[in-house]
């Protein structure tokens, strides 16, 4: 029996980007806020100081900052006819445990989605006709224009380095001409560019594209954000994704919000406490708090006026399913919503090998690169192509960490003297072009509770059923072909196009861009939350993060997660607190 604690106004489940943003906003509004985090406290100087941050084995391969499957994992299968089995160790994606969440170990690639991405179903059907029956793509219920001020706020919080391509409708040379109109430029200029992306940009321009420096949460100069928190200039050390930044140069909750939020009297953080359940009242109309288990195994009931699920993407719908909130999605009937439209990303690459170029791949930053956006979203005519959506192409120089990055040409043995020689020959002289493709939602890609496997607390694990469909394969092949065209224009010794073939595989690392399962929309019959991320069922429950994406566009998710969170915070501050209840009438 859980012991009951004194109530608070607001409880956050998980303490990464979204809870930090909401914590800052809602404590400003005078509310007493409590964040409950399953992992421990983390700060730069203690946990990833520059004196030991650049340690590839420890942080990447021994998973120092990531969630431990021994405590919490999920089961996986490609399709509903298979038996799902546990993901026994991490691979394809790397959620975090601990204060700051995955906001500590991300690369910092901070994009806005296209205006047309938010109306993916209506836009594509208007232009290309009816979508296939099993493609469960939906409009978001929120528009780019509504989110624009909130994208802006997140970008200024983070100090994004970049070059505007569309300022209030005026196309800007050197920026991304396809982006939605922005109200002002990025807070910081682009990072200085290393050689390989520069060459890619030249080849892209030569072949008729409009290259631009990719938007980066790595600081191009010292920056003080609107909260007064200071970040230092990036030193291009090449240890971003999978690592904490030892230099306060990558935006994270730790480097942008926590120094202010943690000092507030109306904010409290409890670490090493795992929320097991969201409680609701007998009428099933309001959340009344959460039950959590602490590090000693004791259970506590924490009553709250408002509950925010701010855990990693798929952990939020998992907690809803465990708490009996909302109708679980059923792929057979298409009815129900919780767990619906799980999506991911489809990525491929083209390695480009030179004899006469030195790239020094170790001089890198997580979002240091040049991209093109001609083949993203609906920026190109899809007529006759057999797919919708797209992705950006980019030449990144994120790292030269040698366990992960030792490219060899096609046909090289995987071990032995020839492999050793090929690694030595190509390490400094090879680059690659990445494609970063959308995943459209599909009837059979979903999340539910596993019937067999249990987590360390004895609760059913989340079961993920996911595979790429024809839409993804056709789209990814198209993107890889376009990347190959540009690679050819770089006049390399040889190129190796690595198309993404076969089923989705949970083993090799791809991206930590898991989306869906608690999707937003305009209709409670087809979505879990409204445009303000407010549960249709319990008006004082908000479900925040990439779980809200109805499908996953061809960009990294964090910029949009930040924008959706600020959008929700504003509605709560200006509307909900005055008159608690549904912000959108069903």
């Amino acid at each position, binding site marked *: 029996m859980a012991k009951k604690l004194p109530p608070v106004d607001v409880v956050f489940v998980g303490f990464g980007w979204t809870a930090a943003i909401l914590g800052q906003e809602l404590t400003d509004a005078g*509310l007493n806020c409590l964040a409950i985090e399953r992992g421990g406290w983390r700060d730069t100087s*203690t946990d990833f100081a520059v004196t030991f941050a650049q340690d590839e*084995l420890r942080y990447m391969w021994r998973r120092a900052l990531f969630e431990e*499957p021994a405590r919490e*994992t999920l089961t996986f299968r490609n399709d509903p006819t298979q038996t799902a089995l546990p993901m026994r160790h991490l691979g394809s994606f790397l959620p975090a445990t601990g204060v700051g969440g995955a906001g500590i170990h991300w690369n910092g690639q901070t994009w806005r989605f296209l205006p047309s991405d938010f109306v993916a179903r209506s836009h594509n059907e208007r232009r290309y006709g009816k979508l296939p029956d099993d493609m469960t793509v939906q409009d978001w219920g929120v528009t780019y224009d509504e989110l624009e001020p909130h994208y802006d706020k997140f970008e200024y919080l983070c100090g994004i380095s970049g070059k505007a391509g569309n300022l209030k409708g005026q196309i800007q040379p050197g920026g991304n001409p396809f982006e939605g109109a922005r109200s002002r430029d990025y807070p910081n200029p682009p990072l200085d560019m290393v050689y390989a992306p520069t060459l890619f940009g030249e080849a892209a321009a030569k072949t008729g594209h409009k290259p631009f420096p990719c938007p980066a949460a790595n600081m191009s100069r010292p920056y003080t954000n609107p909260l007064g928190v200071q970040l230092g200039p990036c*030193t291009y050390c090449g240890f971003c994704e999978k690592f904490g930044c030892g230099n306060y140069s990558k935006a994270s909750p730790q480097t942008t919000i926590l120094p202010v939020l943690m000092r507030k009297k109306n904010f409290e953080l409890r670490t090493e406490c795992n929320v097991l359940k969201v409680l609701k009242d007998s009428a099933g109309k309001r959340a009344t708090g959460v039950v959590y288990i602490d590090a000693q195994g004791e259970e*506590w009931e924490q009553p709250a006026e408002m509950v925010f699920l701010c855990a990693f993407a798929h952990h939020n719908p998992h907690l809803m399913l465990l708490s009996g909130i909302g109708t679980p999605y059923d792929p057979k009937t298409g009815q129900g919503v919780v767990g619906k439209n799980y999506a991911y990303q489809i990525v491929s690459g083209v390695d480009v090998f030179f004899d006469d170029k030195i790239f020094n791949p170790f001089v890198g930053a997580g979002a240091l690169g040049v991209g093109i956006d001609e083949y993203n979203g609906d920026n190109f005519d899809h007529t006759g192509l057999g797919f919708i959506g797209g992705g950006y192409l980019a030449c990144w120089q994120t790292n030269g960490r040698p366990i992960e990055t030792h490219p060899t040409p096609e046909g090289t043995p995987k071990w*032995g003297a020839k492999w050793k020689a090929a690694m030595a020959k190509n390490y400094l002289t090879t680059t690659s072009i990445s494609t970063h493709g959308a995943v459209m939602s599909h009837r059979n890609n979903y999340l539910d509770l596993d019937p067999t496997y*249990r987590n360390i607390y004895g609760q059913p694990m989340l079961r993920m059923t996911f595979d790429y469909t024809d839409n993804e394969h056709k789209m990814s092949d198209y993107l890889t072909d376009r990347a190959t065209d540009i690679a050819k224009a770089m006049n390399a010794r040889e190129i190796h196009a690595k198309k993404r073939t076969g089923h989705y595989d949970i083993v090799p690392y791809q991206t930590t861009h898991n989306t869906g399962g608690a999707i937003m929309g305009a209709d409670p019959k087809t979505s879990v939350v409204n445009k303000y991320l407010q549960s249709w069922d319990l008006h004082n429950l908000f479900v925040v993060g990439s779980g809200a994406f109805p499908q996953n566009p061809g960009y990294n998710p964090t910029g949009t997660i930040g924008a959706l969170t600020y959008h929700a915070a504003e509605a709560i501050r200006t509307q909900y607190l005055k008159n608690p209840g549904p912000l959108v009438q069903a």
Partner: protein
Amino acid sequence: MYIVTSPKFDRRQILSVGVAAGSVAVIDQAQARSISGDVPWEPGQANKPDTAKPGPSEFFSPEEAQFIDAAVSRIIPADALGPGAKEAGVTVFLDRQLAGPYGQAAQWYMQGPWAKGEKTQGYQSKMSPAEVYRAAIKAIDAYCNGKFSGKKFAALTTEQQDQVLTGLEKGDIKLDGADAKSFFTMLLQNTTEGFFSDPLYGGNKDMAGWKLLGFPGAHYDYRPYVKKHNQKLGLAPVGIKGRPGWNAG
């Protein structure tokens, strides 16, 4: 008014735990760490790496170490380009890794029920890495004993060793008590880790792996080099502990 006016934790119950500094309130009432009022940074605290200790073997028996020396010498051989995996200390690296949390699969979900599953579902063996190495080395030596008239793997010619490793890689050799292919995958990955990780962990001795590639290691600041396009920088590698020349041993 929407705000709940009930008090937060009773401040009389605050236990200022010894290490907490300044105004940070560390509350023990809920049996978990409660932090409010400040960033709970503490002087003198660092979440340091757990490094390899010098000394005798912690996991491998002498026979197992001979097998590993021989196998990693074929995966990354010593040649004109520089030291191989054995010379770079990869056997010590593997020994310490297998004796530690990685070897025990401490972070992995290791509860049943067990099923083979599809390749896309990943690792589904109930054996930890330490158990896989122990069983596979024994089984490979037994296989070699039968196939090569009483010789263990380490005693074979390099051509014969390559033949056996290729058989494991392709899954053509069936082992008693271990899956050949998944052992080979693990050995190749762990050898790569040992050859290229920071020397703190026992491998990459004298930064041999980093020198092979031209990777300068744990450098903090490359700003002077960002705009040096198409130039070899010739930076000497440095590890977390510094450079070999800086250390006594």
